[in-house]
């Protein structure tokens, strides 16, 4: 496996300072969230659906605007970033989605190249006339997730796991300083979920990219997150190493005791 050339950037720090988010329909997304994520950290965010996990990661790249407070990503401030500056910030932050979010009717390579759109002129974009270096970077990103043989296949022909790896390659082609993942395994079966999580883990440790990942399943979160953040009703109710998150902590996050539905893999019974 080769590392992307032309100097991968180092991970960026993310700081939440008293962040509140309320949606136009009155629903509260986040309440008084203050967090500090170090460059190169891998953080798992857990909580019930509706607890604000998605809102939390989507504020980091401005897909959800914050109502008050401040988020700093590297040297960018979210509260004031608009237009060109917001796009610049987004170019440094890769995002992976639950439903992969690929353009299905075009090739895998074209999808990965979308990670280079910020650096591509409008004229070149309209003609689909990609720069050679960008194509090379896209190919290297596909190599990193071991799916380069599908470069000219239509995205719709791939399995779910393959599509998610293409989505990871798309973020890698941005040469990002942060990767956000919004329930990246929710549409995948357990073995494929582990493949995708291991890819993210490797990217974090080998490239030093800061990774924030939302997870529904607690075992995945504990296994892959160095640090675990628990959300409940838009508030941070736990913040600490995954190892310290015991039964009691989970009850405070979920408001009830754990059931088999909260873990991805059934516990293996050792005779």
């Amino acid at each position: 496996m080769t590392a992307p050339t032309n100097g991968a950037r180092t991970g960026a720090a993310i700081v939440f300072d008293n962040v509140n988010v309320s949606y136009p329909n009155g629903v509260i997304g986040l309440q008084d969230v203050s967090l500090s994520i170090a460059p190169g950290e891998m953080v798992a965010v857990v909580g019930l659906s509706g607890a604000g996990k998605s809102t939390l990661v989507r504020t980091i790249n401005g897909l959800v605007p914050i109502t008050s407070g401040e988020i700093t990503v590297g040297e960018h401030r979210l509260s004031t970033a608009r237009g060109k500056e917001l796009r610049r910030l987004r170019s440094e932050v890769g995002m992976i989605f639950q439903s992969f979010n690929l353009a299905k009717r075009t090739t895998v390579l074209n999808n990965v190249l979308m990670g280079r759109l910020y650096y591509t002129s409008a004229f070149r974009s309209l003609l689909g006339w990609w720069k050679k270096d960008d194509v090379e970077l896209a190919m290297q990103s596909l190599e990193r997730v071991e799916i380069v043989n599908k470069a000219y296949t239509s995205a719709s022909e791939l399995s779910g796991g393959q599509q998610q790896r293409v989505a990871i390659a798309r973020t890698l082609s941005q040469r990002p300083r942060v990767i956000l993942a919004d329930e990246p395994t929710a549409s995948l079966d357990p073995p494929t979920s582990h493949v995708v999580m291991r890819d993210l883990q490797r990217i974090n440790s080998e490239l030093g990219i800061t990774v924030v990942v939302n997870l529904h399943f607690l075992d995945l979160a504990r296994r892959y997150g160095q640090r675990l953040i628990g959300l409940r009703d838009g508030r941070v109710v736990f913040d600490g190493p995954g190892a310290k998150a015991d039964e009691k902590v989970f009850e405070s996050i979920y408001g009830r005791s754990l059931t088999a539905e909260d873990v991805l893999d059934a516990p293996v019974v050792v005779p």
Partner: protein
Amino acid sequence: MSTPPVAVRPQPVQSVQVRPDKPRNGPKYAIAIVVLAGITVWSALAVEVDVAALFRNANNASRTLIQLVQPDYSFIPQTMPALMQTVQMAIIGTAISIAVALPLSFLASRATNPNKTLLAVVRFIMNVVRSVPDLLYASIFVTVVGTGALSGIMAIFLFDLGIMVKLISEALDGIDRGGQEAARAAGATWLKANRSAMLPEIAPSYLSQSIYVLELNIRASAVIGLVGAGGLGMLIDKVRTFYQYHYLSTVILEILVLVVLLELLSSFTRKRLLT
């Protein structure tokens, strides 16, 4: 010890859930039916259908009909220039309209145009463009630029533009926007995200609708010729004025063949495109 089985009536499920009352839609439907029936009857009164006239003119009609079922094939060579003009008008009209319609469709779709004001303006203009029938466009342009193919092409252009923008912008509204969201999350502008992630998704339906309007145009260019906008329609108008029904049926037959051929081609290509 088990008791012998006894036939038991199924007991209602013990539950605190309340079943909703079935919504009573009967009166609403009844009113709708009465209103629709009323409108239909009123419309029939307005046209003052005179069935008797059909029989009074039967003699005349049968003579015309007999001529119509005997097309004069020797007339075909003389129709060739008009036939070619019809096809050319249809092709040029399609080419220009689909080129202009593509960017306009992106401006007319909620999914691809975030600017609410621009969206409303484009949609309003397109609604106006679409509400004018092709024959009316042709009459207007014949008055403005004179009889001939140019007025026909202009009429076809506006007629197609209305249809294409409507169909393609609705296709854009209906597709999965995941790719667009991802591209924007990677720092792309709306223009770049729409080009890279939305255009490939609608490309097959864009091509398929383009063939569909070409098909419409052959028909339309035959009709708009009646008001002087060139092509077979103008020829129809000429032979009809001189009661040359043998010739008239030849031209009608030609249009029929042309349309059927194009429809075969169109359904073949569309099938290939959409699978």
